[in-house]
């Protein structure tokens, strides 16, 4: 599903990390760990295709197709603070639905469905930017899930949320995982979400460790 070969990234001549080879079937939910500045966000952005890697390539095999990121609609990355378009809550969903190519009537139906799914049904008319952090994340998840992507990349989703908000998000993530969406998330602190992950990747000193395998070399270990 995800294949990486000889991937290398960094800025201004300094290598941030090097990944010789990595394979992820997508069946397990993955928790990406690492210290500040270890390059977690950058790795997620490279996987999403928001930044080209300095060397090597990322290849997603989704529904029998071999894709090089960015793969809009297939692989969606959520920023640590998801961006809310400067419109209403429902309009944020409608925008994504329209971009996804849904017809007007169908787009509305789907957007309303998603709105109820994420528990913001009462807030449809409210400006999206007036939502709290937890609500924003829920709306962002709904906006992403509206496209029914195969992979969600979440960057520190719980970093600034309280326990209640995390529980709300956790319920949504549970739905997504059940629906077969592959989830890779970075997180500093343990939470119900990280507890849900069956696999841990650890970025340390520019090398990606697979903590399930507990082996030092990153290359063949992660298959």
């Amino acid at each position: 599903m995800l294949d990486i070969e000889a991937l290398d990234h960094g800025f201004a001549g300094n290598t941030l990390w090097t990944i010789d080879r990595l394979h992820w079937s997508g069946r397990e939910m993955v928790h990406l760990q690492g210290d500040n500045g270890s390059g977690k966000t950058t790795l997620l952005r490279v996987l999403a295709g928001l930044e080209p890697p300095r060397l090597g390539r990322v290849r997603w095999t989704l529904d029998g197709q071999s894709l090089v990121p960015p793969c809009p609609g297939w692989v969606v990355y959520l920023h640590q603070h998801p961006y809310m378009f400067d419109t209403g809550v429902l309009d944020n969903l409608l925008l994504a639905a329209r971009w996804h190519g849904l017809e007007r009537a169908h787009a509305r139906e789907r957007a309303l469905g998603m709105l109820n799914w994420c528990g913001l049904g009462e807030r449809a008319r409210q400006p999206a930017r007036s939502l709290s952090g937890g609500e924003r994340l829920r709306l962002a998840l709904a906006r992403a899930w509206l496209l029914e992507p195969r992979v969600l990349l979440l960057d520190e989703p719980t970093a600034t949320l309280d326990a209640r908000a995390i529980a709300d998000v956790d319920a949504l993530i549970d739905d997504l995982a059940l629906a077969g969406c592959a989830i890779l998330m970075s997180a500093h602190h343990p939470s119900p979400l990280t507890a849900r992950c069956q696999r841990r990747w650890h970025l340390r000193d520019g090398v990606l460790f697979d903590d399930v395998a507990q082996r030092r070399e990153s290359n063949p270990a992660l298959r």
Partner: protein
Amino acid sequence: MHELLETTGDALVLLLSFDPDLWEIIGVSFSVSLAAMLFAIPPALLIALVLARVVFPGRWLLISLANTLMAVPTVVVGLLLFMLLSRSGPLGEWQLLFTQPAMIIGQWLLAMPLLVAMLHSALQGIDQRAWETARLHGAGKMAALWRLLGEARFGVMAAVVASFGRVIAEVGCAIMVGGNIEHFTRNITTAIALETLKGEYAQGIALGLVMLLLALILNLLLGMLRGRGRQIFSS
């Protein structure tokens, strides 16, 4: 003081009685300035988008250039355009001097730097995540650009309002290339500037009131847009 009041009274009578000469002048001002804005907004948007989103060598030079051109006095633009359009100038064959198209070109030249600079700062201020989020959610490049304009709409409108205010209030260029010809190129500002030479102040004051009212409306609009912009910024 008494006379000032009396003249202002005459001015109000002229305005409210829909004096045809007066309203013709107002019509010239608006049609010329609106046309100039109409022609200026699309290319200015394009340039501003490129300046804000594309990194290329000489980019900051262009931005500085736009900021510098904003400070060029309108009469200088008028003089340059006059020399271009003059019978002995390189574009003399077009026979545009002392016509409304010449005024539109002049105001276009005046509006562009201000529009580009203000639109650039409006678009520059948009969060990079807006573009990324739109693209990751399946938006094509044009759809994503359109969304960026939507995100920057208050800044974009502020740029348009401010530029319109600049061109409709300018007088130097309009006199030089328009010529203040009655029924043809006489607009509010050239009429004010030159009617007073006749020693007839009532029409000047009436037109001044129109400009004042327009300035008030534009400033209220700008104030609202700025306030709205700040609200967004803080969120």
